[in-house]
């Protein structure tokens, strides 16, 4: 659709995921996308894993043995999945409030210099940072829980 008829130019994946220089909402956009992809990957693997049950005890045993053979990597993987689920879930609730109900967005105002987006007002920032801190705390707790499973803590 460009003037010379070529396909449209896109900045691509790296530019899409690069939040440097932007505000906190752009960071949350990046984290939301990345954690979403991680969760989809986990879901696929999880469906494959539980599918092995239908193939009998031996298949299930082999799958479990293969997973456990990863050693600590298995727990690191689960820890990353736990963090992704926490962030994606909590931020997802914020996005539903934003996009379906228009909450936290602030009221439209007369634009006056220096312009600041009302959509990133005090309420929005408070919720974004609350989510970040709460997810970090829960993520550390999840890490300790997984380490306890390994018998380390």
């Amino acid at each position, binding site marked *: *659709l460009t003037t010379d008829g070529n396909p449209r130019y896109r*900045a691509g994946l790296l530019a899409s*995921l690069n939040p440097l220089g932007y505000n906190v909402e752009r960071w949350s956009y990046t984290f939301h996308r990345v954690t979403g992809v991680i969760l989809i990957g986990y879901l696929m693997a999880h469906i494959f894993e539980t599918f092995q049950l239908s193939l009998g005890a031996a298949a299930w045993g082999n799958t479990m043995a293969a997973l456990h053979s990863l050693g600590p990597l298995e727990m690191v993987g689960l820890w990353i999945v736990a963090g992704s689920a926490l962030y994606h879930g909590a931020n997802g609730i914020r996005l539903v409030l934003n996009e379906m109900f228009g909450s936290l967005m602030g009221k439209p105002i007369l*634009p006056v210099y220096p312009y600041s987006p009302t959509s990133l007002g005090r309420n929005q920032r408070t919720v974004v940072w609350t989510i970040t801190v709460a997810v970090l705390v829960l993520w550390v707790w999840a890490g300790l829980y997984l380490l306890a499973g390994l018998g380390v803590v």
Partner: protein
Amino acid sequence: VDKVTLEVVRSGGRRVRYDLKYRKGMTVLDALIEVREKQDSSLGYRHSCRMGICGSCGMNIEGVPRLACQAQISALKTEVVKLEPLHNMKVLKDLVVDLAPFITMHKSVRPHLVRKDLAERDHSDGEYKVVSEEVNRFLQFDYCIMCALCYSACPTVALDPAYLGPQAIAQAYRYMADPIQLARVEILRKRLLRKKTRVGSPLVPPAVSGEVKQGPKPPPLDFEKGAVS
């Protein structure tokens, strides 16, 4: 700081540096103009008003899309200012990009008032009144200067060229939030109902009451012909 260096990503990806003397209050656009006047007349960039109104001089300054005329060099806190063309659009030359996809998206939301009653639209006999509180609902979107900075910054456009982009969506909202469309119908209805009481006969026109079928649809106006539906 008494000197500043512009590092411009020019066509083909080559980075070219221009050293120049810093003046107090110098913007990136001032520096670019000086480079083109005194050092390299082949440097390509767009600009017009130099005061943040025309929206022509959008470019990536230090990795973030900004208007060059509004970017004070002193505020960038660097002696080497990196300049790139806007993202998500094809580079035509140096810092000049092809705005066609951006404009296409803008047109596709029909960024103008669309009245259901075409006969009334084309032969309007009154003014549309909007109070300032209602205007404030969409004024910030009405102030859009179409600089394409948001389109360049948008991470969703970066992956999906079919996505409308922030500017087109904001323009769609601007016209959806405009109370004129409803107000005009209400004004007309009140006026006609008053006439009805006075004269004592049903004078409500077909367009308002829906009782009588409308006449043939008038041809579209010039500005509608170019709109993508």
